[in-house]
């Protein structure tokens, strides 16, 4: 109970702070739209290449952009925490009886809500471009995106708590996010890749999230990749929430 209530308090506080910053909200929504407008048109010709998976170009492209949005929307959240660390906010709350899990979860759930709003905007705007959807698939896909957020956001907060400053955080986050992204088949399907690259991609949890999301958008409910994707992200999310909560209770800065 205590944890739920404290989580709500922190969620409410962090959401208020985000909404107070209109530039952030605008950028968050503009990003997926930019991909749609400036990258989408390239796909028309690529889709006819040999090796491109079945389904319309947008049904292959949008799921990837959704996972990428989930990644980028949550992997940089640690930067905001550095600010709060410096001003002693985390330390002050650690000397209250509040739940340590709530310190993490309140913030991470805010991040999840924001990434889902971005995802919703992207999906709705993609329909006129030729994206075909089925509601059940989209619902599961969104649950999967939430799990991606619950992996990346606690990871980002943990790094912020350990490293303590933006200067150290920026290169670290980039070093993690870039290979994850390149090996996930977000931009172009990994089926176009040489064998060794495909093998490498299989070791990337985000790759499984992308494959599963693509399946969900192409109505392939029977695809075992969906179960794999959800299971991989679910286990990682549970792990990262535990690690993140622990970091909050130990934060030294």
């Amino acid at each position: 109970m205590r944890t739920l209530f404290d989580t709500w308090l922190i969620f409410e506080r962090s959401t208020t702070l985000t909404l107070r910053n209109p530039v952030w909200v605008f950028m968050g929504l503009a990003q997926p739209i930019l991909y749609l407008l400036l990258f989408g048109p390239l796909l028309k010709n690529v889709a006819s290449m040999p090796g491109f998976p079945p389904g319309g170009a947008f049904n292959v492209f949008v799921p990837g952009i959704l996972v990428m949005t989930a990644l980028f929307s949550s992997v940089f959240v640690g930067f905001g925490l550095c600010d709060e660390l410096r001003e002693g906010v985390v330390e002050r709350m650690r000397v209250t009886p509040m739940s340590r899990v709530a310190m993490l979860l309140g913030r991470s759930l805010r991040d999840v809500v924001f990434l889902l709003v971005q995802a919703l905007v992207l999906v709705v705007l993609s329909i006129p471009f030729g994206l075909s959807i089925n509601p059940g698939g989209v619902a599961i896909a969104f649950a999967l995106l939430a799990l991606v957020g619950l992996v990346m956001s606690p990871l980002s907060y943990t790094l912020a708590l350990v490293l303590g400053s933006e200067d150290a955080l920026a290169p670290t986050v980039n070093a993690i996010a870039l290979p994850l992204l390149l090996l996930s088949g977000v931009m172009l399907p990994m089926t176009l890749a040489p064998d060794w690259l495909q093998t490498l991609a299989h070791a990337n949890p985000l790759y499984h999230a992308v494959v599963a999301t693509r399946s969900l958008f192409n109505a392939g409910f029977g695809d075992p990749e969906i179960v794999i994707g959800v299971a991989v992200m679910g286990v990682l999310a549970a792990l990262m929430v535990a690690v993140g909560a622990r970091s909050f209770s130990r934060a030294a800065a």
Partner: protein
Amino acid sequence: MQDTAAIIETSGLRRTFKGKSKGRGRSDPAEVEAVAGVDLRVAAGEIFGFLGPNGAGKTTTLRVLATLLRPTSGTARVAGFDVARQAGEVRRRIGYVAQAGGSYRECTGREELIIQGRLFGLGKAESGRRAQEILSSLDLADAADRTCSTYSGGMRRRLNIGIGIVHRPDLLFLDEPTTGLDPQARARMWDEIRKLRGSGTTVFLTTHYLEEADALCDRLAIIDHGRIVAEGSPDELKRQIAGDVLTVGVNGNGERVVKLLEGQPFVREACLEDGLVRLYVDRGEEAVPGVLRLLDRNGLAPSTMNLHRPSLDDVFLKKTGRSLRESAA
């Protein structure tokens, strides 16, 4: 004092850190002993000061007492509970204001006070009322709904203290509450801290300002290299250094003058401090002509001469061999 209840009691409190080796070598990282065996007793209702230079172990001790760091060894009971084993109970009864502050610049003062109250279990309406009460008493009512980024340094410090007392703690920890404040804001802060004592809150603060320790604290402990070197009321501590202190400027002839004066009957102790000769004497008015005569006889003339009662810095100097003013700089 034996009758009054202790609100803080520590015994053999130690806290060490693993030394951070910057090199690539695998050499065993040295352990740094930030708090090296502190025995402390703070009575309920007093303003207790922890005086020492930067790096003396003040903040580490404070953080152990406030449950932010676990002691490496030894015990500490705060507000009746063990800081290591009953941290939750301790947290309910204490307030803590870090040097970093605690309020977030993008939140308003009122928001910060309300959420703090709610984290301590106050209801929504109750927390709002308490926030208003604190804002008024700290003279922040007009700024209540502005973000903290618009506050002056003094206002922000007052708000941080307000956040620390939302739940009416028995004991409030303040880490360097006036560092960086201008004299006016500092005086204001002292008033607020005295008001807290007046309302029955025990205040435990750290400072490296001698004037602050002297003027504000009922009792204090001087800490250096993680150890308490002296403890008592400011007057008690100063009384340990009987007599007067005479400082003489001698234009670079310090060592010679110290040697000259050391054996004199009217000088109890002479040392060189910051280029000035520092003499501990029984009676200043007798020592001054004696010193002048001696200097004159040796062809020396003093550039400055200053006679004063012993200060806390003299106590610090006596106990540690260094001046606090020097160490703090």
